[in-house]
């Protein structure tokens, strides 16, 4: 007997709400409101809002280095976000990117350090593959639990995030620890051949950007494919999707593995492209941010790329703000949260308008 899917499933409504983002004029109102709220917060801590926002803009795109930083920040977030879109479209609400990223970073660090004598292109490939494998493997338990034991994936992936964090910490403290790094244990530096080469001299911007573009293209193709369509339908109408040939367990496991693989790849990018060595804070909220970016980007590749850039700019800009004025950088998080909430509200409003036009009435 097919489970009677109540229309009100939370993730069902995610999809519906996010779909309705298309063509919502009030989005600019939302952005304006978020900017205004940011100004209020700046005032609240005694800073001049105009100065504050100028620092943010300068910090984000003020010069070549900072522009590079913005993109550098956006790259792993975009990869995570793009990877989690298929799952979200199928109403599989996985929030385990944080842990999957950490495990991917761990796997790639171990692999690259172990095979450190290989030449550059090979070592990069090893790192990337190990990252993908690490992330996907960490996604597997939660995927199987959801696919075969109906365990809610929101909670299982979340709990596993914490386990991953502790596991990473343990290994960094013991097996991988670079001597001399006691207070914040980290691994040894990756060999030069294992590091992603810089794209733009004078910045930290690396060739990992290409990965983002490739991933976005891949997602765009998948979204318009018959299989992508079927998984979309599965999100809200599993019975109809079953008649299209979608098997529930398969859909869940495959989309979660893709999300894990992407997060793991982003982990490799963080280590091999940005930080050069493995730190316990490698994930640093990127997983969660990726999820938010995917939602705000309307679960579509173009939107995700755009929002990822905006978030990258916000984060880098806020750091510049802190350096320049002492205002805490977590302002960026607050603005991101307000944007998310505001967009969700405006989407609900336009969806209501749509349904009212249809004239659903008792008859």
């Amino acid at each position, binding site marked *: 007997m097919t489970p009677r899917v109540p229309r009100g499933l939370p993730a069902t409504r995610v999809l519906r709400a996010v779909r309705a983002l298309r063509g919502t004029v009030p989005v600019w109102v939302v952005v304006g409101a978020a900017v205004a709220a940011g100004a209020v917060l700046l005032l609240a801590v005694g800073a001049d809002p105009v100065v504050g926002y100028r620092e943010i803009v300068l910090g984000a795109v003020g010069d070549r280095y900072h522009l590079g930083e913005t993109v550098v920040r956006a790259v792993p977030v975009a990869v995570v976000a793009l990877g989690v879109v298929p799952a979200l479209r199928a109403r599989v609400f996985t929030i385990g990117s944080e842990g999957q990223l950490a495990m991917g970073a761990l796997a790639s660090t171990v692999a690259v350090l172990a095979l450190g004598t290989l030449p550059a292109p090979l070592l990069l490939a090893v790192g990337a593959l190990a990252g993908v494998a690490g992330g996907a493997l960490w996604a597997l338990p939660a995927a199987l639990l959801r696919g075969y034991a109906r365990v809610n994936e929101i909670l299982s992936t979340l*709990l596993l995030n914490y386990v991953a964090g502790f596991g990473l910490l343990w290994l960094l403290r013991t097996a991988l620890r670079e001597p001399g790094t006691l207070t914040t244990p980290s691994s040894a530096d990756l060999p030069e051949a294992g590091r992603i080469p810089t794209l733009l001299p004078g910045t930290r911007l690396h060739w990992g950007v290409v990965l983002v573009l490739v991933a976005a293209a891949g997602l765009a193709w998948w979204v318009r494919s018959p299989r992508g369509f079927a998984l979309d339908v599965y999100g809200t109408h599993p019975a109809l999707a079953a008649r299209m040939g979608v098997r529930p367990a398969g859909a869940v496991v495959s989309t979660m593995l893709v999300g894990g693989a992407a997060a793991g790849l982003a982990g490799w990018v963080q280590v091999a492209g940005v930080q050069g060595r493995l730190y316990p804070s490698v994930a640093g909220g990127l997983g969660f941010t990726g999820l938010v970016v995917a939602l705000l980007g309307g679960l579509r590749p173009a939107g995700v790329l755009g929002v990822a850039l905006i978030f990258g700019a916000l984060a880098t800009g806020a750091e510049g703000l802190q350096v320049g004025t002492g205002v805490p950088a*977590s302002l960026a998080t607050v603005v991101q949260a307000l944007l998310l909430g505001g967009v969700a509200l405006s989407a609900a409003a336009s*969806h209501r308008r749509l349904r009212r036009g249809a004239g659903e009435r008792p008859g």
Partner: protein
Amino acid sequence: MKLLTLAFWEVVLAGSVRLAVPLALAALGETLVERSGILNLGVEGMMIMGALAGVWAAVGGGSWAGVAAGAAVGALLGALMALAVVGGGANQVVIGVALTLLGTGLASFLFQAWIPSGRQGVGVSPVPVVRVPGLADLPLVGPALFAQNLLMYGTLALVPALAWMLRRSRFGLAVRAVGDDPAAAALRGVATARVRTLTLVAGGALAGVAGAAITVGYLGSFTDGVTAGRGFVAVAIVIIGNWTPLGALAGALLFAFCDSLALHAQSGGVVLPVEAWSALPYLVTLAVLVVTSRRRRAPRALGV
């Protein structure tokens, strides 16, 4: 401290009960909310804001002012969620995530603005501990059950109160009705929006108190990320506890027991590495979630 001594287990049990209080409070609040058919993923944000508000108010007004501040802030955030989800019809999961993000970001922001890193941290005297004379000296369970702060006794009293309210009171009947079939409840004359708003505000208040229970209850100070995901664990506990107040308490005790064991086993130098002990509560919660996935009866309007 050897693993099998009475003293060791006494300390672990006492710690379990103490650590369970914030979890139980948050889980009780979330139970109420979910029984009315709303999934609130903003608990983490409400908790951490309550934790900060607690310390901030306690500096000037003492520990009970801190608890009250936590409740107020949590209630406010709950009202915000009600406005967006019940009033505005926005997606509850997205708004919950946004609220958590907002709470964590805002708490971090405000704390750093209040006490920039480098300055000496702020400490407050926690909620007073009450020892029940005689009973507190019982072996093994004495300190655990009869030498705790007032928040713990309050939480303990809240469990049967909430259970009774859900089962027998008018409001509880309305909550259960709305959580089962909101459309039919509306036809029966229940103000579903008002019921859900009330549960969200109450749930938010409890989450805020839960956060304050950590900082003002036993820690005495605030640090970034002091809640460490407890808000989400509370949501898991609600599911494990099958959406009952007693189940929420049991789940909270389970997680807190593992947590307490982890804390004290580390210092005892037992076999497993520190991090394994830290991961234990999360793993156990996950295991219980899996094992109990058969016999669950969620409120139908919840859709999980």
